[in-house]
């Protein structure tokens, strides 16, 4: 098979399992080229570079910045990816299942829909066999195996494989690899917000409501179900801590800075609505 794989990479922390899977397919000579794609401002080139160092052959940077970037939701990203897949004559797209920031879990499914390709979502194992792919999917009660026809979209579960880390020689080699720059307009994708569902996310006029858990009004008594716990020497220790650096590291920068400067403890559970102007 002489296929081409598009792998979507995102600017927020990327677990890189997707690149690894694509590179593995290439090593097995099942596909011929791995293309790393990312949408966003100039900075996403770094993400693409990392993907190149991990074995992708070339990169495509879909340049979206400023206001357009704020409007960029999963639907628009799917449109971009679908258009790129056609333009690049790709026959496999590998994406993550769920972004760590917006938790949408939509892009892969929507890209597949727009291309009318089958989708192997939440994949923990894939096997390419000629023009079909066997996908083991993680579902609620366990695992499920489906067979889909190529071309197809696969969304990777975290256990698809272990990420490969970039080695120094590969990082050097990656510097020579090519990153093509395209604009959504070149692909015929409009980024205007058309009945878009993203208020309260990034816009500066709208507001994001962050709620945090208040200190419990009264110490909750162990409910009936746990009544049996009575005899244990359970030390009731409510540890109140402010955001610790280690917790901060895993939060997106802007949100985190916002939270820290307000000195909120990381116990956002119950009400006590706190309105923060977006951009946090």
């Amino acid at each position, binding site marked *: 098979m002489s296929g081409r794989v598009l792998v979507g990479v995102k600017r927020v922390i990327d677990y890189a399992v997707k690149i690894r899977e694509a590179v593995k397919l290439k090593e097995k000579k099942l596909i011929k080229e791995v293309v790393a794609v990312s949408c966003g401002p100039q900075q996403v080139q770094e993400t693409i570079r990392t993907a190149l160092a991990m074995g992708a052959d070339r990169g495509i940077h879909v340049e979206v910045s400023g206001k357009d970037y704020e409007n960029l939701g999963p639907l628009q990203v799917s449109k971009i990816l679908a258009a790129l897949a056609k333009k690049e004559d790709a026959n496999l797209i590998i994406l993550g299942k769920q972004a760590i*920031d917006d938790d949408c879990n939509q892009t892969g499914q929507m890209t597949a829909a727009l291309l009318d390709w089958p989708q192997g979502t939440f994949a923990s194992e894939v096997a390419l066999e000629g023009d079909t792919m066997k996908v083991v999917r993680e579902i609620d009660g*366990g695992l499920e195996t489906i067979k889909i026809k190529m071309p197809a979209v696969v969304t990777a579960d975290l256990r698809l494989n272990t990420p490969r880390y970039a080695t120094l020689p590969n990082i050097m080699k990656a510097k020579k690899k090519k990153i093509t720059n395209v604009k959504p307009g070149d692909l015929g994708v409009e980024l205007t917000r058309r*009945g878009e569902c993203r208020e309260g996310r990034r816009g500066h006029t709208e507001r994001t409501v962050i709620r945090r858990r208040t200190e419990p009004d009264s110490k909750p008594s162990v409910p009936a179900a746990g009544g049996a716990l009575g005899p244990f020497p*359970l030390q009731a220790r409510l*540890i109140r801590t402010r955001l610790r650096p280690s917790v901060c590291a895993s939060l997106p920068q802007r949100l985190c800075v916002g939270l820290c400067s307000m000195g909120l403890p990381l116990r956002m559970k119950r009400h006590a609505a706190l309105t923060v102007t977006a951009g946090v």
Partner: protein
Amino acid sequence: QSTLVVAEHNNDTLTPITLNAISAASKIGGEVACLVAGTNCTKVAEEVSKIKGVQKVLVAQHDAYKGALAEELTPLILATQKQFNFTHICAGASAFGKNLLPRVAAKLDVAPISDIIEIKSPDTFVRTIYAGNALSTVKCSEPVKVLTVRGTSFEAAAVEGGGAATEEVSLSSPVGVSEWLEQNLTKSDRPELTSAKVVVSGGRGLKSGENFKLLYDLADKMNAAVGASRAAVDAGFVPNDMQVGQTGKIVAPELYIAVGISGAIQHLAGMKDSKTIVAINKDPEAPIFQVADYGLVADLFKAVPEMTEALNK
């Protein structure tokens, strides 16, 4: 205004999260219709017609709907949508709903809203972002609102008291690009994780899959479900369907006991709405104590057997 709820089932029984989705649909207001598509699902359709709040049951039976493949169900939902002009389409935010509805939404050229936890009005919904650390209120002006509903955030609709009329809908022609081969479901006599009143979860601190027996013993005494952190699943201690967290299952039991779990925010995202949280960990600095109502700084290998022992008395 009307809502279509896509029922999740295995041709034999309805998956409980559908009841939560139906109650969310009732909150939106207007007529609630429920689509039951499967290979031989008359029994499920009857079950659905009795659910309180459902006004209409639409049934579609064909071999192509085996395994509820998104490629096959999407054209069916689109055709049904065309026929009835629903203003909302929703399903539970389970592997089924998350796989299917974004595909439907893209075909309708609308942006779907995933995993909503609250309905403010027919077009305004609340969902969590940043691993549950922030809430985002979303106003949706799409002509058709496509939603997945977090099961733990809505009461289950009553399974009795309804009397919906059942009608067959015209079938979509098979697409044939995908095929369902098999399912390997984990068998367990314990309650189901997302609906259990008590959940005992283990993390990397358990050190091995065998040691999870400590938790199973405790869970069996309390009629609890057993969950795990991603670290424990990745380490191969337990199967993936036990994972509680941002990318695993979201649970909100009366009592959640976290054993040997440090409490990465991705794990907290899946359990911090539990009514009472108990954490057992050796490390007093473990972030899990930040959300715990009761924290026990102790060696789990001593504390857990002691608890099980005490429950034996």
